[in-house]
């Protein structure tokens, strides 16, 4: 069996639905073919989470929706709608 390595795509969307547009993104490639660094792309690889899904990315996790803590309702902090995807790619050492 050909060994595989994981490629990860993390998309941050404009709301909690997968069809929302991408506001931020990150990629890590376990095969070593691609090396992504901060600030390397000004346009996202996909327009929405749904577009990534349709291109074969498997969704691993999405941010839960939590009630706002009293007194913290208006505080903004980390990006809110994080979706983690993977692809498994053949790896030839």
């Amino acid at each position: 069996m050909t060994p595989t390595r994981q490629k990860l795509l993390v998309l941050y969307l404009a709301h909690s639905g997968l069809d929302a547009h991408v506001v931020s993104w990150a990629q890590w490639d376990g095969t070593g073919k691609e090396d992504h660094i901060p600030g390397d792309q000004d346009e996202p690889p996909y327009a929405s989470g749904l577009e990534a899904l349709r291109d074969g990315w498997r969704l691993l996790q999405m941010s839960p929706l939590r009630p706002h803590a009293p007194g913290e309702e208006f505080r903004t902090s980390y990006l809110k709608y994080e979706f983690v995807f993977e692809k498994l790619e053949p790896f030839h050492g």
Partner: protein
Amino acid sequence: MDEPKLLDSKQMAEFAARGVLRFDGVVPDEINERFCTDAAGREIPVVPAGTPLDEAYAPGTPIHGLVSLPRVRGAIESLVGPGSLVDHHFLHLALPPASFEKRGLRQSSQPTHQDSTIDPRMAFDAQLFYFPHAVTREMGGTRYIPGSHLRIVSEAAIGRYQNIRGQQHVVCPAGTVMLAHHGLWHGGGINRSDRMRFMFKIRLNPTVRQCRLWDTSDLGPAHGEQRPIFWLREAPDPEHLHSILCRLEPWFEQDTGRLEILNRIRLWRFLLGDDEFDADYWLTRLENAPEAAAQ
């Protein structure tokens, strides 16, 4: 020193909204060249934390010249007032690829981060970014995220966000200065050119209440008057102070973008010393408490 040229209200509103102001080529070549010579020899003064800006740099030195320029000094005083303190300064170096190849190291850009640590204050420090030589795209000038300054995060915790819609990369002529809110998300870019890139940063703490420190003569008595909202016959004036405060950034989430507007209006109230100010009715709606009036 010539009279400082203070910021106007639109510039201050832009700072409240986006957390950054940029002045291209504002520093004369003579200062830039002397600074670059000093930087190449690492002849940058060592200054104890908390030294008054007026005492931190010897007259005649390029950094003293930089912070004495009327536009630079005026912007500093508009943001953090007279008598600000030098928290620290740092000469940032972005090495060219050959430096990494020689040592067998992976070259990368700096992850996006917020300086210092979690800082939920309304008062803010100003960070002066000085680009003493021209910066091309290839040289990887500082990357920053407009409108990120009011997000309360913990320094490098945001390093996962490789790219953010609307991120800016500084490409500028020599002698460019940026003044940023301490909360602005930023990171050094990767230098793919064959020369060293310098950027000098000074963090300044206010010692006075940050209230109406800029030139408020353009503010007008009706600047807090409400406009029609949502259902409009024509697009609102983009130069209107409320438009500046309420302009969304391309990376804002749909709901959180509205919270950013609330927080900008609260910052503007703080800067004005006016708890009644509102832009486009965002806070008035939330503060309406008819049950209190009925008692």
